């Protein structure tokens, strides 16, 4: 283990002071239960940002918390050392550890609105950090103002007197950053701090983090599932899978020429706003703690796996300037597949629109969410509706689907106007316009099996006999690559990706003409997102569906849609073919959005 981490430390950080050095970290369930995280070693130098990437369940948050000497309930750190400026955090008494947290090592959590105390003014909260660690700095008032300026917040008395709910999400995250940087720690741990922020806000927060680390020589560990964000921010990166680091090295090398099959898979799944590519996901699921048997944990999902992978646990080897935990690292290093381009043949569309939204204004209570929105969806075309949170994109989808009824204007579907609200629409219209929900964890009734869920859709919309219905159900499950084995499963027994496929199957089984997909991949991991997007793209083209694809992720648009509509604050900012919008955006808003989208740096 140590020889491998040594290899890359030399290459990237030898000239600087190593602030944090983690060796052989192991965390188990209970004291002697299965390992959650094992053999994790890395080092971070002063002023550098280290990236820890992985999908949900990879153990990245467990490692992040361990860096503060903390574990979630039920977990124990059973081995390893965490050297911060030479002292091992894991050997400190609980009193010394408490003193170290906040002053020498600080933490920025995912959700700033949950991290701040809603009942205290932000000034009080920043001051509190300084007061707890009184010896850290001199005058508290001056220091508060200084820290606020460092995170680009105005240190006016008025700002300090605000409560967290009076700030925007970006400002809240800045306050949390200010608290984390207040005592000038040696190490700062950031756990997906920009998830939930808009791309522009995200970019500003990331710039702030980078700048602060550089100017104060702080070492930072940045935990994220978003490879594009990480590739832009960090110098070195570790990819985690099933509780182990599978590949670690400099970000440029790792993202440019990944070696481990899992890293390759992840990178292949990341959509690019610059090129239209077929996204390739990774089938299967990450094994849970306790189910990681002998051999390589990735072997079951790996395209390069050979017999020995199932029995021999790979030790890290140094290949092409980084450390890789793969038995076949040297064999496969040279294989470099190209990603096929996804330029689909556009249907030449001259026909009238399948769906036409004319000057729709929608409200929630008395506050307007959409004002005068017009969108056309030609037949056999996928239109992406893009916008930041609060732009009204989901409201638009809900108006069309009949879930939101407080709107004026006109929505016509193949020439017939659609009524406001599903209760006023007839069964045929309801059948032809199908809606897929954002969150597959709530859109399937937990008390029903997959077969009941699909059957119910068929009994509501068709007069088919029981036998025909079950035939159709099996057929549609095969279309979404699930198969008849899933018929008797309950939603709890399925992964997020499988649930979303069931939801798609439910929509498809009644042969709709228009499919509305509302952020259908935002609750899923990137490798699963790629599979779902490819599935929808294939189905849309095979079945000649008209489709509305709602997303906040501009990068995804390229892989699925032929034209795009950009929404902001309830208005259409720009609309047109995807290439035009993404490559030559006319409106400054779209231009800024395109600039701020994190892009994967591959070299």
């Amino acid at each position: 283990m140590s020889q491998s981490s040594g290899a890359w430390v030399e290459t990237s950080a030898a000239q600087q002071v190593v602030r944090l050095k983690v060796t052989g970290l192991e965390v188990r369930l209970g004291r002697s239960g299965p390992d959650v995280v094992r053999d994790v070693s890395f080092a971070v130098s002063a002023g550098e940002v280290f990236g820890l990437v992985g999908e949900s369940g990879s153990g990245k948050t467990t490692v992040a918390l361990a860096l503060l000497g903390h574990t979630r309930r039920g977990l124990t750190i059973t081995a390893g050392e965490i050297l911060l400026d030479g002292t091992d955090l894991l050997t400190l008494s609980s009193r010394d550890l408490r003193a170290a947290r906040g002053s020498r090592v600080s933490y920025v959590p995912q959700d700033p609105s949950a991290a701040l105390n809603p009942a205290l003014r932000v000034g009080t909260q920043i001051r509190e950090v300084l007061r707890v660690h009184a010896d850290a700095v001199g005058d508290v008032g001056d220091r508060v103002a200084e820290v606020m300026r460092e995170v680009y917040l105005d240190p006016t008395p008025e700002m300090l007197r605000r409560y967290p709910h009076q700030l925007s999400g970006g400002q809240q995250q800045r306050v949390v950053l200010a608290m984390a940087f207040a005592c000038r720690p040696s190490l700062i741990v950031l756990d997906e701090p920009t998830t939930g922020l808009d791309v522009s806000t995200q970019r500003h927060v990331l710039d702030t983090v980078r700048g602060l680390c550089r100017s104060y020589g702080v070492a930072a560990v940045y935990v994220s599932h978003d490879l594009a964000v990480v590739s832009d921010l960090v110098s070195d990166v570790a990819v985690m899978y099933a509780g182990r680091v599978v590949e670690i090295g400099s970000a440029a090398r790792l993202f440019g020429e990944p070696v481990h099959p899992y890293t390759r898979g992840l990178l292949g799944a990341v959509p690019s706003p610059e090129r239209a590519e077929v996204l390739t996901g990774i089938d299967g699921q990450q094994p849970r703690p306790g189910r990681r048997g002998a051999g390589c944990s990735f072997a079951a999902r790996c395209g390069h796996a050979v017999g020995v992978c199932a029995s021999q646990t790979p030790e890290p080897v140094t290949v092409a300037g980084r450390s890789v935990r793969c038995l076949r690292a040297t064999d496969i290093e040279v294989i470099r597949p190209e990603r096929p381009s996804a330029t689909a043949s556009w249907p030449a569309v001259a026909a009238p629109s399948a769906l036409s939204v004319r000057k729709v204004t929608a409200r929630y209570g008395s506050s307007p969410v959409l004002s005068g929105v017009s969108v056309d969806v030609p037949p056999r075309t996928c239109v992406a509706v893009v916008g930041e949170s609060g732009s009204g994109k989901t409201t638009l989808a809900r108006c069309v689907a009949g879930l939101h009824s407080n709107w004026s204007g006109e929505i016509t579907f193949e020439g017939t106007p659609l009524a406001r609200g599903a209760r006023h629409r007839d069964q045929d219209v309801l059948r032809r316009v199908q809606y897929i929900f954002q969150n597959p964890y709530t859109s399937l009734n937990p008390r029903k099996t997959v077969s009941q869920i699909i059957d119910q859709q068929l009994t509501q919309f068709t007069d088919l006999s029981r036998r025909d219905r079950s035939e159709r159900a099996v057929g549609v499950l095969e279309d979404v690559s699930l198969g008849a084995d899933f018929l008797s499963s309950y939603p709890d027994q399925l992964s997020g990706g499988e649930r979303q496929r069931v939801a798609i199957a439910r929509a498809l089984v009644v042969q709709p003409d228009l499919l509305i997909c509302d952020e259908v991949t935002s609750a899923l991991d990137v490798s699963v997102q790629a599979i779902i997007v490819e599935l929808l793209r294939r189905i849309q083209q095979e079945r000649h569906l008209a489709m509305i694809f709602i997303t906040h992720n501009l990068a995804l648009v390229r892989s699925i849609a032929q034209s795009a509509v950009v929404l902001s604050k309830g208005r259409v900012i720009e609309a047109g073919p995807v290439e035009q919008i993404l490559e030559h955006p006319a409106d400054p808003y779209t231009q800024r959005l395109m600039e701020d989208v994190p892009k994967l740096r591959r070299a």
Partner: protein
Amino acid sequence: MIGFGLVLFVVLVAVIGPFVTPYSPNVNAPLALDFGRPSAQFLLGTDIEARDVLSRVLDGGWVLLIMAACATTVGVAAGAAAGISAAYLRGISDGVIMRVVDVILSFPQLVFALLLLSLLGPKLWLITIAVGVSHAPQVARVLRSATLDLSERDFVKAAELQGMRPAKVMRKEILPNLVSPLMVEAGLRLTYSIVIIAGLAFLGFGPQPPTANWGVMINENREGLALNPWAVIVPALLIALLTIGTNMFTDAFARVAIGVDRRPEEAALIDDLGDAA
């Protein structure tokens, strides 16, 4: 487990009891005294009218149990229907249903049942219904709040997009997800039913004398407490055991139900912890 044992014991006493009474429960035993002490002949002694206490205890339970079970069924069913409709339909229905609930709720349960009985007369079926109705508001409140959360879930919206009628959405989509709160409520209300029905019998609203009944027995044998305390203690003890047993059993059930019957978010959370991300 203990709870289940207690319930089982009392239920067995009540169910098998009527078939194994040593004497006729409603007829004076020959050659016996009022409030006779326990003896080899009369194991628990005799009561105010020189009847065998053991026989009356064995015979007096089943009516109480059946009435309690029926009252609980009526109360939970009515309460669930009201609570679920109020939460799912919202608007005017919600307002009307919940105000009615508030009115009923403002009377203590026993007083409410007494009120209905004194207006309509003490019939057994009426007692059962009165007790049931007095339960409905509490059940309605609990189920309303459970349904409020459920009816915002996407799978309910999905059913609405299938053009499903509201009554069917409630029955097919929402109700199956309420099994655990329903079971917990049923257990809890059963406990209360037993106490209230026994209490009403004590006050004279129950099976008419000379039919044996644990509640009535406590009342009529109070006077002889000093002479043969068993005539009061045994029925009182059985009611107490039944109540405690049902309560413990229900509690245990609720704990198990929460563990096994997780909601999707909780399941996701637990999975997440298992992954220990």
